[in-house]
């Protein structure tokens, strides 16, 4: 019977897909375990780094440096906004890529001149297809974050900022909070001076002004790129971990729904089979009866 065969084929194909989703679940869960360990190892560095930079800025005397160049005295129309968007290299990870792209689009819509530095091929393909200003030489993968890659990324964007090709740089990435992926926006350049301003209010809190050895400029020239590099490394690790987590949850629920579908279809199949048998028996019985009556 055609209906029975159809249902059987359907069950077979769902079973095949379930095998794939299940394999992907296993792969991403083992990757997640590794990414989690890397994240745990970086977390103290990442957190202390941010804390220390705020502390340092708090204890800093007033001086000018290109990294703090906030105003640039340009009208909003001429300002160039740069966004580093961290997406995944692959799909099939639930709303992970979608969420990050959505946040990026929201941010981009706020400004007139924007340019994008996309990490991960999913986001790159998306923005390029929409004809946005994507830096085509900025090709980095989101897989297995490494320090040297963070260094290259930092060099590219610091260079762009110092050459005044970009006036403000933000990073859009995904943060993992209690197994929940949350898209985040973080400002990289120019460095915020807010924390520095706070000092004036709470003057008694400040015990002393730190000295910079050998000179504030020399220290800032080295410290800021280093800080940004550490920050980017932390961001990459966090994003990679989120991606694996998203894929794991997505694949787990896909496997679950495949199982539900198979259960439902098996029921249908059995019903169809029963119906077919019943019908056959009825046919035979009525045939026999008509023979007897002859």
């Amino acid at each position, binding site marked *: 019977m055609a209906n029975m065969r159809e249902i059987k084929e359907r069950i077979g194909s769902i079973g095949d897909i379930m095998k794939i989703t299940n394999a992907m679940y296993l792969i991403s869960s083992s990757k997640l375990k590794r990414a989690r360990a890397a994240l745990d190892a970086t977390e103290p560095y990442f957190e202390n780094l941010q804390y220390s930079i705020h502390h340092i800025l708090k204890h800093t005397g007033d001086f000018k440096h290109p990294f703090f160049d906030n105003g640039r005295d340009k009208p909003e129309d001429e300002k160039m906004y740069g966004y580093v968007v961290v997406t995944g290299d692959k799909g099939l990870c639930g709303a992970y890529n979608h969420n990050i792209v959505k946040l990026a689009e929201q941010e981009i819509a706020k400004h007139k001149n924007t340019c994008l530095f996309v990490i991960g091929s999913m986001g790159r393909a998306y923005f390029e297809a929409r004809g946005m200003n994507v830096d085509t030489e900025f090709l980095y993968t989101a897989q297995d974050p490494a320090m040297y890659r963070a260094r290259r990324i930092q060099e590219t964007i610091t260079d762009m900022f110092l050459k005044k090709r970009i006036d403000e740089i933000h990073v859009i990435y995904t943060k993992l909070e209690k197994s929940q992926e949350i898209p985040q926006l973080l400002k990289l350049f120019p460095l915020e001076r807010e924390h520095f301003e706070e000092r004036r209010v709470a003057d008694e809190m400040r015990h002393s002004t730190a000295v910079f050895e050998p000179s504030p400029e020399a220290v800032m020239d080295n410290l800021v790129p*280093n800080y940004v590099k550490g920050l980017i490394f932390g961001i990459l690790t966090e994003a990679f971990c989120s991606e694996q987590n998203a894929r794991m949850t997505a694949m787990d629920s896909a496997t679950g729904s495949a199982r539900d579908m198979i259960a439902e279809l098996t029921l249908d199949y059995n019903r169809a089979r029963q119906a077919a048998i019943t019908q056959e028996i009825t046919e035979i019985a009525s045939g026999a009866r008509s023979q007897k009556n002859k």
Partner: protein
Amino acid sequence: MAKTFKLDILACDKYFFSGDCEEVIFPSIDGSRGVMAGHEPMICCLSAGEIQYRCDGEWHRAIVSEGFLEVMPDFVKMFADTVERPEDIDIKRAEAAKARAEERLRQQLSTKQYYHTKAALNRAMARIKAAGKH
């Protein structure tokens, strides 16, 4: 017992050290520097090389790459890309890295590549030097 301060050494992939320390010596961009308890607040850059720190009168050594330090009278925080114990260094790998960097330096390089290679060479040299002493 000498006066101590809290020393934290953080590498990007691990919390290398945290504890009370009497003295720390590190390579900064303008030469070697030492810090003891009660030092004036200072922000300083770390260059690739060897650091030494003394806890309970005993000297410890570690190899660091680029980073920076935050020095306050009662604590010191050191941030570096990598921190390794001398015994953990793979000298063969460091020598291979050094040879590779030297070979690259002989070629025509762009300014950026030149700085990358120079930095790589520096790291390799610091590792070899420290491991040799061990």
